């Protein structure tokens, strides 16, 4: 299977980003929950087991009320999103899966997928979550 060099470099970049991002996201989620909303775009949407959480305020509230978590990520997958779909804005699809235990609840399998998009702020570029879909799997 031949891939163009360009595509390969996108894949590499996506993989690097995904791994870094997943580490940061779950670390922040477990240990520094209050700054988790910073990883999201202002206009991002979180769908948590079917519940829609849209906008920064809602996200802030949501994460504040969510009990403390302990995530164990066992699976990570990612794909670069085709530029035609994103109008050349770098986007990566990241999928994670594993187990999570929220305080006061039993352990669940979860899977989560993110659409990450590159945002340029004051000259530097960072990845932000544009869309997040989280589900328990049992």
């Amino acid at each position, binding site marked *: 299977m031949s891939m163009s060099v360009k595509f390969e470099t996108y894949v590499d970049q996506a993989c690097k980003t995904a791994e870094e991002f997943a580490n940061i996201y779950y670390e922040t989620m477990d240990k520094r929950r209050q700054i988790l909303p910073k990883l999201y775009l202002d206009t991002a949407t979180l769908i948590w087991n079917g519940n829609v959480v849209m906008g920064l305020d809602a996200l802030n509230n949501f994460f504040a009320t969510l009990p403390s978590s302990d995530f164990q990520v066992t699976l990570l997958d990612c794909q670069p999103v085709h530029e035609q*779909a994103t109008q050349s804005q770098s986007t990566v699809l990241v999928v994670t899966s594993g187990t999570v235990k929220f305080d006061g609840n039993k352990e669940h399998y979860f899977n989560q*997928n993110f659409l990450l998009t*590159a945002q340029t702020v004051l000259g530097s570029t960072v990845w932000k979550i544009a869309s997040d879909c989280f589900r328990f799997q049992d």
Partner: protein
Amino acid sequence: MYPNEKKRGTNRHEESPSEENSLLQGRRKDGISSQGNINKMKDCVHTGSLLSKLQEDNETVEMRDVHENYKVRYSPYSFENKRNWKHHKKDQVQCTVYKDENSPEVEMGHDSEDEATASWYRVTIPCGRKSDKALLMKSIQSLCSVPFTPVDLHYERSRIQFFVQHSNTASALKNVSFKICSDESRKISIFVNPSDVPYSVQNKFRPEQMELLKLAMRKRYDVSHQALDLQRFRFDPDLLDCGVDMKLNQRSCMSATLKIIQENFPELLSLNLRNNKLYQLDSLITVVKMAPHVKILNLSKNELKSAWELEKVKELQLEELWLEGNPFCSTFSDERAYVSAIQKCFPKLLYLDGRKLPTPIQVDTDSPQFMQSCKENLREPKPIKDRVLQFLQEYYLIYDYGDRYGLLSAYHDEACFSLTVPLNPSDQDPSSFYTNGQLLKYKKHDIVDCLRMLPKTQHDFSSFGVVIRYQTETMLCFSVNGKFKLSHNCFSYSLYIVNDQLLVRDSHSDEVESAFAMTMFMPHMNSNPILSLDQQKMVHTFSTQSGMKLEWSQKCLEDNEWNYTKAAEIFCMLQNIGKIPKEFFRPMS
């Protein structure tokens, strides 16, 4: 006062004062002037045998204050030049310490580790002359845990001497002592001591030469771009005229050049060192101090043999780098590995060998709140959801019951697909953490081939939960979550899958769950293209003649570029081989 550590025979590395005395004696004995020719000195034999005696006695030799001995040592041994035997510039107590093999540090006084002023160490190998110099150096290099480049490697009397920088190199070299056997099966010892900057590294240019150098460089400096072009600097006509031999691959020349840059062009942005026969970049280690703003570096067409050389300049915040034409470039298996290796060294690099690299991006947890908001088209959710559901129905119909070839038209030409299946916790393999591109299917034919190999399934539509996650003018992202069991048509899609990620998990019960995330590319938001009057007529006629429903007649005609005859032929052919499903036809009245 001195750490009294266990003495290990294999790690003895100290230049004991007795050696000095014996040498002094030797010298006095022969009465040969220190200015004389080394080769004529006969006392090397004495030295050798005395040293070997010392080696045998190593168990009893105590640690000394090396500093005390400097006075004794400072005698005009140096017949070549005064490089080696000056007083150590720092008047401190130096103590050589027996070190554990595992301990990486060595206390050698204060070592600031500042690149420009990092300490130099003189490495001495007694009786080294007896061994083949190249072979010996090679053995040392291979055993030494820290890679190093010997500076000023030379013979002095019967010994081999060279210089290295950095305390960790020094200690690593000490550890190599006694690990190599010479031809006479005698273990070779290596002595390492702090020293002054080796002569060759010191500036050896006279002031007037520096002035000429400065003028030559001024001519090559482009003020508007803050760029200095030192390509083939040795053959610069001005320098050749003045007789200044500027071999940039020699430390002294490179450090002189860097000094001039620091003094005259501190704002330097771009440095071109192409075609200067650079074998290593040791001499450029100080560049980050002398020219801290350099963002563009051209090292192409030199003689760099390893990508490791770049580590020496990796503190530069480079945006553009040229490396092609160096021997190490061809050592990579493919372009991807090459780019990857360079990016590891310079993560912020934008251009390599003139080609743009994908923008390096980091995840930032402390970014400010205000941000460019993404363009989002607020459309009525219902029609979109309906379309998505319809799409999914058609997709899974083919997936479950049809030949999955039919899915070809659902995928974009350059779509990606990946499938992940979590393993049982008992056989968790950390390497399954990543698909890393190899298990990623790219391009629709490969994807469909892969899908066809997956087992037959039956999706339970009632269990489907579809969530529309993200929407722009050109993109729709939705997630499908549901259950499925493990048991040529052409569909017209105006939605094409560009990214399809399938995650399958075994649940405790027999049923298997799956979650899909698909991003779709929508080339047109208008599902019904406006047909011209002629086209409409054609569709009606075709429908009457073929018996197919209007939309399928239209589809057939569209597929055949509105060539009626051709469409009819295709229709007949497909009909004959029974490829057209009944639902395409109008109900028989």
